[in-house]
C-alpha cells in the first residue's frame, strides 16, 4: 500500500515549484477569500453604522495589542524553525516550532480572558451587529490558530526525527497567513473607533 501513499506523480515538478508549496498556497488563497468576504461585509456595515465606533471603544486595545505582539513573535520563531530545517537541523527546528505553538497558546489564553470580561459586561454575540462581527471574525481566526497549532505539532514530531523537513516551511507559511489575518482584524475591530 505504500505505493499508493506516495505516487510518482508526487515526485514530478513540471512547474519547477515543489508540489507541497503549491498546495499550501492554494489553501491560503482559498482562505483569503473567506476572510475577505467576512471583512468586506464588516466594512460595509461599519461604513453604514457610525455607532459601531462607540461599541468598538469597549474592546480592550491593550490586550489586543499584546496579542498582536505575541503572534508576530511566534511567526519569527516559525521563520527560525524554517532556517534550522534548511540546515537539516531537525531537533532545533522542533524547539522553535514549539515556541510558535507556545505563542499560539498564549494568544488563545489571552483571548479567553478578554472574551470572559466582555461577556460578563454584557457584550455578547447577540448584543448587536458589531459584537456579532467581533466574535464571528475573531472566533473564526482563533479556530485557525488552533488548527495551525495542531499542524505545527504534527510537523514538529517529524522534524525531530529529521523527516519531512520541507513541511516546516509549509506550516510556517500557513502560520504567517494566520498572523496576517490578525493584522487586519486588530485595527478593524479594536482601533477603528
Amino acid at each position, binding site marked *: 500500500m505504500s505505493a499508493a501513499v506516495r505516487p*510518482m*506523480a508526487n515526485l*514530478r515538478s513540471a512547474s519547477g515549484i515543489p508540489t507541497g508549496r503549491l*498546495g499550501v498556497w492554494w489553501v491560503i488563497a*482559498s482562505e483569503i*477569500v473567506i476572510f475577505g468576504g467576512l471583512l468586506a461585509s464588516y466594512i460595509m456595515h461599519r461604513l453604514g453604522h457610525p455607532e459601531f465606533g462607540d461599541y468598538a471603544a469597549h474592546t480592550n486595545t491593550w490586550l489586543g495589542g499584546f496579542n498582536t505582539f505575541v503572534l508576530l513573535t511566534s511567526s519569527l520563531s516559525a521563520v527560525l524553525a524554517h532556517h534550522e530545517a534548511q540546515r537539516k537541523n531537525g531537533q532545533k527546528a522542533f524547539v522553535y516550532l514549539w515556541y510558535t505553538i507556545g505563542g499560539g497558546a498564549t494568544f488563545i489564553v489571552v483571548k479567553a480572558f478578554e472574551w470572559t470580561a466582555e461577556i460578563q459586561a454584557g457584550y455578547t454575540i447577540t448584543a*448587536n451587529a458589531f459584537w*456579532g462581527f467581533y466574535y*464571528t471574525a475573531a472566533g473564526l481566526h482563533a479556530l485557525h490558530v488552533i488548527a495551525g497549532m495542531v499542524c505545527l505539532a504534527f510537523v514538529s514530531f517529524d522534524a525531530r526525527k529529521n523527516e519531512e523537513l520541507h513541511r516546516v516551511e509549509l506550516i510556517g507559511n500557513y502560520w504567517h497567513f494566520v498572523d496576517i489575518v490578525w493584522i487586519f482584524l486588530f485595527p478593524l475591530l479594536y482601533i477603528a473607533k
Partner: protein
Amino acid sequence: MSKYLLSTDHKIICFQYMLTGMAMGLIGAFMAYVFRMQLAWPGSDVPFWGQVSPAEYNALVTNHGTIMIFWVAMPVLIAAFGNLCIPLMLGADDMVFPRINRLSFQVFFLSAVVLIASFLVEGGGFGGAWTAYPPLSAKAHYNLTPLGSTLWVIAVGLEFVAFLLGGINFVTTAMNARAPGLRMFDMPMVVWMIVIASILFMASVGPLIAGAVMLVFDQTVGTGFYDPATGGDPVLWQHLFWFFGHPEVYVVLLPAVGISLDIIPTFSRKKLFGYKTILYTAIATGVLSFFVWAHHQFVSGIDPRMANIFTVTTVLISVPLAEMTFAVIASLYGGKIQLTTPMLWALSFWAEFIIGGITGIFLGASGADIYFHDNYFVLAHFHYTFYPIAIIGTFAGFTYWFPKMFGRMMNEALGKIHFWVSITCYNAIFFPLFFLGLAGQHRRIYSYEHFPELALPEYQAIREFATTALIIMLLAQGVFFFNWVWSMFKGKPAGKNPWKANTLEWTTESPPGHGNWRHGEFPNCYRGPYEYSPEGREDDYWPQNEPPEGHEERVKPAAAPA
C-alpha cells in the same frame, strides 16, 4: 471492501463520486417528479409519495435545486471526471495528494448524509429555496423548519469544504504532475476546464462560506447579521450568495464544455479549432462572471444606474460563449463526422445550451427582468443551461470514457435509443415552460388553482404535457442503466484505444491497472491533443505519446520514479 472504501486511487475515488452523484441525481429527479405531478394534477395522490402538502412542496423544490447543483453537477462533472481524466490525461499514476483526495470524498459523502438527514428531522427539510434568502432562512418562526434549515446550511458548507480540498488536488496536479514534454498548452480541454473551474470555485466560494457562518449564527445563537432590527442587512446575503452563485454556473459549465470539446474533434476527425482562443475566452468568461452577480437582484431595489452596469456586463458575458460555439462549428465544418452516442450527446450539449444562452440575454436586460423575475421563463431558461451541463455533459463524458473505465464498449443501439428519447422528452418538458412564463406563471407556487388567470385549462394542459414527458424521460433512464450493467459484463472488449483518440489516457490498458501504466511505460508527450487527420500521415490521428521520426528534442528525460 475496506480496500475499496479507503483507497487513495484516483480511479476508485472517481467511481465513488460518480455513484454518489448519480444516486443523488435519482433522488433529485424523483423530487422533480413529485412536484411536477402536483403541478399537473394538483391535490391528487402522487404515486410513490401520496398527498403533497405545501410545506413538502417547498422542501422538495428547495432540495431538488440544491441537490442537482451541489450534489450532482459538481461531484460528477468536476470531481468524478476530474479524478478520472486529470492523472490519466497527464500521464501520471495518481493525484499529487492522494490522501487529501480521499478526504475530500469522505467530507463530500458526509455532506450528502447531512443533507438527507435534514429531511428526516422534526419539522422536515428546509423549504426556503436553494438561494436561502434571509429572513426566511434565518428565523425559525418564518420557515418553521428550525433543524432542517440549519442542517441544510451545514450540509452545503461541508460540501464546499470537500470541493476546496478536491480543487487543490486538481490544480496542483495539473501544474506539477504532467508527463515529460507535456506543456500547459498540450493539456486536453477537459483538464484545462476543470482546472479553471476549480480556481473559479476557490475564488468565489469564500465570501459565501463566511456568509453561511453568519447565517448559521442567525439561526442558532440568535445574532442578527441579516436582520435590520439589530443593525443587520438581508440584502448582504444576496450579494454574498450571488457573488458565488453566478460564477458557480461557470464552475459547472466549464467542465461540461471541456468534455464536449474533447469528444467533438475525436469524432469529426479534425483539429479543434482555436485551442488557445477557446482557453483565453474561458478564462475571460471566468473573470467576467465575477462582475454580473447583481443581475439576480434587479428587483431587490438596487439603483437603476447600477442595474444598467450589470445589464452590460451580463450581456457581454454571452460574447465569449458565442465565440466558443463558433469554434465548435468550425471544428465540425468539413470533418468526417461519426455520430456515435458520445458525439450525439456532445453535439446536443451545444444545441440545447444555445437556447439557454439566448434566453439569458432577455433576462440580463434589467427592464425585461422585472417581468420575468421569479417566473417560469427564468425557470425554463436556467434548466436550458443546467440540464445540458449536468445531465447531457455527464452522459457525453460517461459514454465516451466508458470503454476506458470498464474495458468494454457500450451498446450503440441502446445508447442511441436512450439519447433520442431523453433529448426529445427533455425539450418537451422545458420548452413549453417558456410560454407559461410569458403568461405570467410564478415560480415556487404549490397550486395555480388559487390564481384564476393561471388556472385556465390551456395552461393546465401544458403542465400535464410537461409532466408526462418527464415520466417518459425518467423511464428512459432504465435503458441507460440496463446498457451500463449489460455492457460492463457482455459488451465488446474495448482494447486500449477504441475511438482512435490522441490523448494519453488511451495509451494504457482499459481499465488501467494499479498505477495506471506499467512501470517504465509512462508516456512522454510530443504534441498537442487534437492532431487529427494531420497532413502527410497515413493514420488520421497522431497520439500525443508517439515520437516523431528522428528527433525527440521536446522531451526531457523522465524523472526517475522513486
